């Protein structure tokens, strides 16, 4: 029987502690740090966390001359850099990259979720031999570096993917070459987000009491029916956490994208931003504007869906 890991248990304790704590306002024994040092620490923490991010933004609304003369805060804020980003020379490529990033992240997330929900259901609710070994193999795959599979995947994408019946020469499906298409990215990102998606969701599915599902089956629900009517609605926080992690991973990925993409048919945002670095000088105004735009979606998603991320981090041991 697969036992919940210590992190998964601590989520439950976490909720209990928070509930207990909010009813008390006096200094507790678990508070190690005195208020003075606490606030000193918090101010430092907030400064170091926010200052670079704010600097990214203030640089992006500065005039190039101000950046070159070393003004940290713009004296006359301007949206000139954003205007150049969306109408200037490289605008078509940047907009195409945004579109590609959106397609790749959404495609990866949808594909990963569909596959991982079925797999996690099998891992958490169906008995079969070698279940634990299979689950730990999946975990190991989650942690392997992407550099170990990148060269064979590149050749696979170049030749096109063929689906054949094992040990025969019968080919059921042969795709065209996939290099420089969004498909090459969607497929490879799904490959390495599947393992952690399965790992997180299996943990969540296991917390759903067996009795609920048994009751549904007695009421005439099929196993598939109980998956869709009982398990998925109850495991929504876990599914949301998985979706967020997959989205962020696909949005952020750089190594596969730089190997597999060649033109603006498939270049994603990290690649487009990397190309702002010229041979000799970097247009910092344009670059910070592009960087800020590209970072905004993941930052907003994480801040607003913060509680799901914390739950997922505690439950899954995500590598990034």
């Amino acid at each position, binding site marked *: 029987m697969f036992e919940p890991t*210590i992190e998964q248990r601590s989520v439950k304790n976490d909720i209990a502690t928070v509930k207990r704590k909010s009813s008390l306002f006096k200094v507790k*024994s678990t*508070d190690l740090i005195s208020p003075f040092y*606490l606030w000193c620490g918090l101010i430092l923490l907030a400064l170091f966390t926010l200052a670079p991010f704010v600097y990214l933004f203030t640089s992006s609304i500065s005039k190039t001359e101000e950046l070159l003369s*070393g003004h940290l805060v713009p004296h006359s804020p301007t949206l000139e850099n954003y205007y150049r980003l969306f109408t200037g020379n490289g605008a078509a490529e940047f907009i195409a990259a945004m579109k590609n990033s959106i397609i790749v992240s959404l495609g990866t997330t949808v594909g990963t979720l569909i596959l991982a929900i079925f797999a996690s259901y*099998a891992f958490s609710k169906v008995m079969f031999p070698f279940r634990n070994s299979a689950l730990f193999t*999946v975990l190991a795959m989650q942690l392997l*570096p992407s550099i*170990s599979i990148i060269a064979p995947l590149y050749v696979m994408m170049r030749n096109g993917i063929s689906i054949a019946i094992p040990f025969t020469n019968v080919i059921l499906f042969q795709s065209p070459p996939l290099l420089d298409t969004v498909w090459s990215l969607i497929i490879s990102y799904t490959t390495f987000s599947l393992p952690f998606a399965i790992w997180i969701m299996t943990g969540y599915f296991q917390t759903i009491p067996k009795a609920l599902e048994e009751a549904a089956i007695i009421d005439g629900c099929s196993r598939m029916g109980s998956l869709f009517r009982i398990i998925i609605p109850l495991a929504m926080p876990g599914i949301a956490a998985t979706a967020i992690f997959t989205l962020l991973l696909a949005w952020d990925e750089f190594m596969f994208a730089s190997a597999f993409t060649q033109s603006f048919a498939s270049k994603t945002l990290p690649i487009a931003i990397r190309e702002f670095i010229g041979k000799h000088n970097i247009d910092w105004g344009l670059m910070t504007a592009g960087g800020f735009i590209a970072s905004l979606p993941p930052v907003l998603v994480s801040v607003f869906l913060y509680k799901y991320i914390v739950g997922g981090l505690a439950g899954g*041991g995500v590598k990034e």
Partner: protein
Amino acid sequence: MEKSAGKSAKFRLMGKKKRKDLLFAVILLLPTFYILFKTFLFPIYQSLVWSMYKYHMLDGSDVVFVGFSNFTALFKNHDFWTATYFTGYFTVISTVAELVLGLFSALLLNQMFRGRVFFRMIIIIPWAMLTLVNGLLWKWIFQPGNGSFTIILKKIHVLSASENPLWLADAHNIINSVVVADVWKMTPFMTLLLLAGLQAIPSTLYEAAMMDGAGFWKKLWYVTIPQLFPILMIAVVLRTIAAFRVYDILTVFTGDPTTSISYLTFNKAFRYFYLGEASAMAWVSTAIILVFIVLYIRMLKKNSHEV
């Protein structure tokens, strides 16, 4: 354990149900297993095979079996050892820094105070930023002359107005700057992981320590760290595995591929298209990471049995 033994006995009696379960599991898992086999397990095996061949993708030369000579050539290669040294240096320094800073941030955020949710939310911002933008941002900060690091140091009179150090002059300085960028981005991950662990420590332990007159350091040393130890270890192994693969940030800071094994491997494969040698190099990384993965899984299993 006993419970599952009882269960499997029950399943043996209900042979039909068991077979039906197995079939159901196979149907649910088939697509995932097929994809993972095709795009993950088989490529890993394939790169092991390639690592023993002379395989250049573009020059049209024959693919020749060369045994272990790719590996022996690699271990004689000066660039490879430089890259290994820098990868190790980066991994150790950044993991230790993230661990220490993450622990103290988690201790701060575990206390009760007004606006706690706000502070817990903002620390997630660096973690959510694009890795590449994070690299570029710090490169901008460390620019000589008009980068904010130089300007701030001048404002607080650490540097005189005429000084203008090149922060990114040599490989060591570059790696140190990349460490700063990585610490800024990944400390929140450590903090959130450790915060979950801190919340699970029973307050009675601290009460007992307080009775004995323990101050901050004593509480930290005798209660927090021993209680947090399993999660600390897991966090360290996870960060080590992730830090070892550093690539994105480096490509922003430098064109020098000897600054990390991933960088060197990537260039071998996609700049020069020596897939045989690149596969050998990739397998060295894979083998090192595998050791850590085994360690990690053993820790996870041990934790789930003890609790």
